[in-house]
């Protein structure tokens, strides 16, 4: 165990820190508060381009595809340093965290060349077409059809809860290519150009008031066979790859975001002289929650770097960060009272946090997975 940064990690951090000092737009959060979601997204897209041009996008991606070829630990350092500097998020979240890594794992050389660099530069934004009205937690129940017609698949069906579909240029789509198949067999993972005729995106309004996610309808959408990822009929395996990335990598970003908010709550409490015994207990509980997620994440990354595969501790991170964030949001509301209700950031994050235990696999599904695959308990359904 050695928690000091290696010379290489230190050099990476210092170089990044000094770049961020010079390049993070000042006061951007306040300036952008009144932006529409589209304006804000365009701004974040521009920021990602800046990050890419300076060589900081895709820290752990292979250099051959525009990445930096660095370690997972350096990727985690990148996330922490971005948060510490108060930098905007990168726009292409799903491309960077989920779909890009899946293409790196399963893609052909042609696909890697075609797609990866454009994910990093935010020239092409990605969304993830997994859930359907009757395939949520039971993802293997997807009904969106992909029928082979010569050198194309013809896609018909509907996806739902598709985050950022309104901004997306491409969609990673799980389809049923064998109409006679059931469940996990007969699925194919397609990379679909959202500008293809027959793709219809309808934003859904969330309880936060914004429309981050959408319904997406596909009517006779023609997808060339060279845009199959991982081979026809292997869609389930490829989708599981995406989900594994989702659960392992998104956590750091959210843990760091919560930590920033804890810092803000602490600073506000200090300004207002809120330091009574109840406040101390509640703030400490949130701090402990966040530290435990951070440290368990460090252990999980160390395990992957040392052994090449995730250990059991990684499996609980999704449950960990999502539920810890929800508990923290309640603490912030309690300690600041009416002030938090009218605080745009705290009010938004309080409402938004309720989605955390649903998106990317509900807490219930996560617990089923850990029970079966880590604790070795029998399948419950």
């Amino acid at each position, binding site marked *: *165990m*050695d*928690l*000091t*940064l*290696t010379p290489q*990690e230190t050099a990476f951090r210092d170089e990044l820190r000094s770049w961020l000092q010079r390049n993070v737009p000042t006061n951007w959060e306040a300036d952008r508060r009144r932006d529409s979601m589209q304006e804000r997204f365009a701004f974040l897209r521009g920021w990602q381009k800046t990050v890419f041009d300076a060589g900081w996008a895709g820290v752990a991606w292979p250099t051959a595809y525009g990445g930096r070829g660095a370690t997972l*630990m350096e990727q985690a350092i990148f996330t922490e340093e971005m948060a510490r500097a108060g930098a905007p998020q990168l726009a292409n979240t799903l491309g960077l965290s989920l779909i890009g890594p899946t293409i790196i794992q399963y893609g052909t050389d042609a696909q890697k060349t075609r797609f990866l660099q454009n994910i990093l530069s935010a020239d092409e934004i990605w969304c993830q077409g997994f859930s359907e009205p009757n395939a949520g937690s039971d993802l293997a129940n997807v009904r969106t059809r992909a029928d082979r017609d010569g050198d194309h698949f013809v896609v018909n069906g509907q996806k739902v809860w598709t985050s950022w579909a309104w901004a997306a240029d491409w969609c990673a789509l799980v389809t049923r290519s064998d109409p006679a198949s059931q469940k996990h067999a007969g699925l194919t993972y397609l990379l679909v150009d959202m500008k293809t005729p027959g793709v219809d995106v309808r934003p859904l309004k969330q309880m936060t008031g914004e429309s981050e996610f959408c319904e997406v309808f596909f009517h006779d959408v023609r997808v060339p066979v060279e845009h199959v990822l991982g081979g026809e009929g292997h869609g389930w395996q490829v989708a599981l790859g995406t989900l594994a990335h989702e659960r392992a990598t998104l956590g750091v970003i959210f843990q760091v975001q919560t930590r920033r908010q804890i810092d803000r709550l*602490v600073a506000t*409490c*200090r300004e207002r*002289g*809120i*330091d009574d*015994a109840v*406040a*101390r*207990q*509640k*703030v*400490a*509980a949130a*701090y*402990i929650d966040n*530290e*435990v997620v951070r*440290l*368990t994440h*460090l*252990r999980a*990354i*160390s*395990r992957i*770097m*040392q052994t090449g595969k995730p250990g*059991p*501790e990684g499996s*609980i991170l999704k*449950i*960990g960060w999502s539920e810890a964030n929800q508990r923290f949001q309640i603490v912030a509301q309690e300690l600041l009272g009416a002030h938090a209700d009218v605080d745009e950031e705290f009010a938004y994050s309080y409402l938004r946090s309720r989605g955390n235990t649903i998106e990317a696999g509900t807490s*219930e599904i996560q*617990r*089923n997975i*850990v*029970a*079966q695959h*880590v*604790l*070795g*308990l*029998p*399948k*419950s359904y």
Partner: protein
Amino acid sequence: MNFELNDTQRDIKDAAREFFSKELPSAVVRRLSDTDTAFDRDLWRKCAEQGYTGMIFPEQYGGVGLGFVELAAMLEEMGRALLPGPFISTVLFAGSVLDACASDAQKKTFLAPICHGDMRATVAVLEPTASWDRAAIRMAATANSGGVELTGEKWFVMDADIADFLIVAARATSGELVLAIVPSDASGVSKTVTPGMDLTRRQHRVSFDGVRVPADCVLARGAAADAALARAIDITAVGVSAEMVGGMQFVLDHTVSYVKTRSQFGRPIGAYQAVQHRCVDMFALVEGARSATYYAAYALGHDDPQAALAVSVAKAYASDAFRDVGNMAIQAQGGMGFTWENDTHLYYRRAKGSELMCGDATFHRDRIGRALLVR
């Protein structure tokens, strides 16, 4: 950066697992728990031969000179096996006080025998307030021919009956803290056992009636005494947390294996989500406690300025977690989990004793809350 045990640390943990599973099956834990002192001289000797009693102390006093992460790795296995007796009070608590503030001569006389496995010791801190806040220490240490004279009562003193000496925290007339060594059989010392829920450890109320401590048995005064006691409490808190992690891991493993075999409605009860989700919650608590504990152990060993905060995170989290893991384990095992012959209650009782040592979760959350909020 690498937050995984290295090969040496893993070897220490594996060797401890093997040692304790051979020397300390649950029947032995139960037999020792039934004795007056919960102490076994032969087993203690064997622990000393493994190097456990001197693990974190300098080689010049017979120690092994290893770090707190190595200690935590070993303690996890000691806690998994539920070693009864005075290891925490002797090695972690008394040993760390001596290591932090004793003179060379005092270390030769008191620390070396601990390392060699020849002496047991304990630290008497708490008073009727039961507060781990050092400012709550009130017992009088009046000046007496270069040394001090102690009068008053200490409560909840671990393993006082088998300790060869006690380290007593008291307050001089000037208000400064004094740490003094008192032989267990000194004139004016009387001990009454006060049985708690944990069957594997004894605690006592100890009265001091004009107990004279010569100058060479005063360990430290004032700021030096306070710093040494604070450091020893932090080390002990992390050690207890590591023991708790091992205990929780046992309870989790025990429960998971039970729900795989116990069948109702024609299926193992572990196939039902209500039971599965409880097991996953237990698992998450064990892994979380482990992350927090190893980090605190590392921070303490590297004089990290955030070490005290890390210790409080670990002790607060592990204290709540061990109890909650026990709650869920008993429920998941139904009537069997509530029986005397099922080992779960031994760990559940240990969880209560460990929770109270060196400050419970509320105490440590308050410490974190003060560090964050109080200007």
